[in-house]
């Protein structure tokens, strides 16, 4: 039994297309034209417990939409998805107890209250026993160095500090799966490496499954043996990073990914055995 299993996962958005000019605006009042955008197009995706999978794609490729379906935020248009034994969008309240989510672009902590107060509230929200809570907080503090700003409100933190707090917050209830949507966006090299080190340790110790979207291929190289590449809603590649290197005969992941985004195929003859371009 896979921890995450999605089949034919599809999400369509209906986008209202405005007509031009005054007459057009008038027409729109009575008859609206919609165009359908397929953000995620029949994706199959399976992840085992304890895996760390990188999920990459150009802007607007459908990464975040996929993550939002896996976390139960968005309802898929078609296809099936089960995660940790639940159908995310149907069994929301029980399902979300077992996952942690971090969106790099926005904090989930309460803006105006001290970080530690947010953590205490999260302890209540997820029913974490006090002893477990204290132990984990201590451990996160050891790696991430949180103690110096635990008493500050989130609005006073730097981006790097905020991100560390968000990560700790997402893991206080020891979730089986951690979803990270661009966790290193806008961070300096030191903050990045701290976060990578932390994720590695968490994965190692608690066997937490990590799904991570990013534009920084350094994250993938540091953390994820496996990578999934999506473009225009379709899965282009899902397999080991190492196989990408042997397939393409290149030594820089960035060059390979660039080529994949541009729609190129690896030169035949270089492809290693058992590797599939989906």
């Amino acid at each position, binding site marked *: 039994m896979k921890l995450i299993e999605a089949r034919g996962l599809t999400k369509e*958005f209906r986008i209202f297309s405005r007509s031009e000019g005054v007459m057009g605006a008038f027409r729109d009042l009575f008859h609206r034209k919609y165009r359908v955008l397929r*953000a995620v197009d029949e994706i199959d995706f399976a992840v085992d417990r304890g895996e760390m999978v990188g999920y990459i*794609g150009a*802007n*607007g*490729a*459908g*990464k*975040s*939409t996929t993550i*939002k379906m896996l*976390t*139960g*935020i*968005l*309802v898929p248009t078609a296809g099936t998805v089960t995660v940790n034994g639940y159908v995310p969008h149907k069994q*929301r*309240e*029980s399902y*979300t*107890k077992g*996952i942690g*989510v971090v*969106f790099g*672009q*926005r904090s*989930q902590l309460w803006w*105006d*209250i001290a970080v530690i*107060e947010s953590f205490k*509230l999260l302890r*209540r*929200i*997820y*029913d974490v026993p006090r002893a477990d809570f204290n132990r984990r907080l201590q451990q996160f503090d050891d790696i991430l160095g949180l103690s110096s700003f635990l008493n500050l409100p989130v609005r006073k933190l730097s981006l790097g500090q905020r991100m560390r707090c968000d990560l700790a917050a997402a893991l206080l209830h020891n979730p089986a799966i951690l979803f990270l949507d661009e966790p290193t966006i806008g961070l300096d090299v030191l903050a990045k490496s701290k976060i990578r080190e932390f994720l590695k340790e968490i994965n190692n110790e608690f066997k937490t499954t990590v799904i991570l979207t990013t534009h920084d291929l350094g994250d993938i190289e540091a953390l994820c043996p496996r990578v999934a590449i999506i473009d225009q809603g379709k899965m282009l590649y899902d397999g080991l990073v190492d196989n990408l290197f042997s397939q393409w005969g290149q030594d820089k992941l960035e060059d390979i990914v660039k080529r994949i985004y541009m729609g190129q195929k690896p030169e035949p003859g270089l492809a290693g055995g058992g590797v599939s371009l989906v």
Partner: protein
Amino acid sequence: MFNRLLLYLELVRMEFVNNLAYRSFYFTGILNYSIQIGAYFFLWDAVYVGNRVIGGLDREAMITYVIIAWVVRSFYFSNLDRRVGTDIRDGKIALELIRPYSYQMVKYARSFGEAAFRMFFFAFPAGAAIYLIRPFTLPVGWDSVAMFVAAVLGAFVINAQISMIAGFAVFFTKSPTGVYKAKRVIMDLLSGLLLPISFYPGWAREIIQLLPFQAVSYLPNMIYLGKIRGAAAFEVLLLQVFWIAVLGFLAHLFWRFAVKHVVIQGG
């Protein structure tokens, strides 16, 4: 179940403490309310020249009505519609969906924390200060006081539910300010805050009586004044319970729809 209750109580406490940090915000609020109450006092003072009785209220009752209506409003009023509307417009509602709690209950709990703060630091002191400047009529008996307190709690819930639904309406209109303004005008007019419902022409009264708004201001005020007592006051509470059930169901439908159709910016 019990754990959830603890969580919501914790949120009430947190919001209460949170508000303590923003005291200056309330000083401007106090000024605002003083001007409102003062203006209406002079208005009604002028309208009630001689010993007139309008809509079943004499001069003294009317002035008490205005004061009580505004002081109670300072308790039940909340920005819930704006908060929910902003959550929807900015896509923050997505972040709420990954939490194992009820979004609406969290919002209500935080609103109640804020209301409790306003009650202690705003409604009580304001009421006492006004009483010192211009004594108004006190409730006629303890039964009226008890029923009034219950009715004000009901008013808080109904107002919060209406605000919640208005917030969800942003999902359809995509024009939040229009929704907030419409809600505010409807609430001010039809709840009886600006004008007791008994002042309206018969046909308007008949319509207003079929709507939930009058249970927020007019009916609790009439209980305070002793114009509604005993069994009739109890019926007001029952009416509030009825509207709480209906509005709760409506809000639930809106929520279900919003969750299904939530659209968030970004790839």
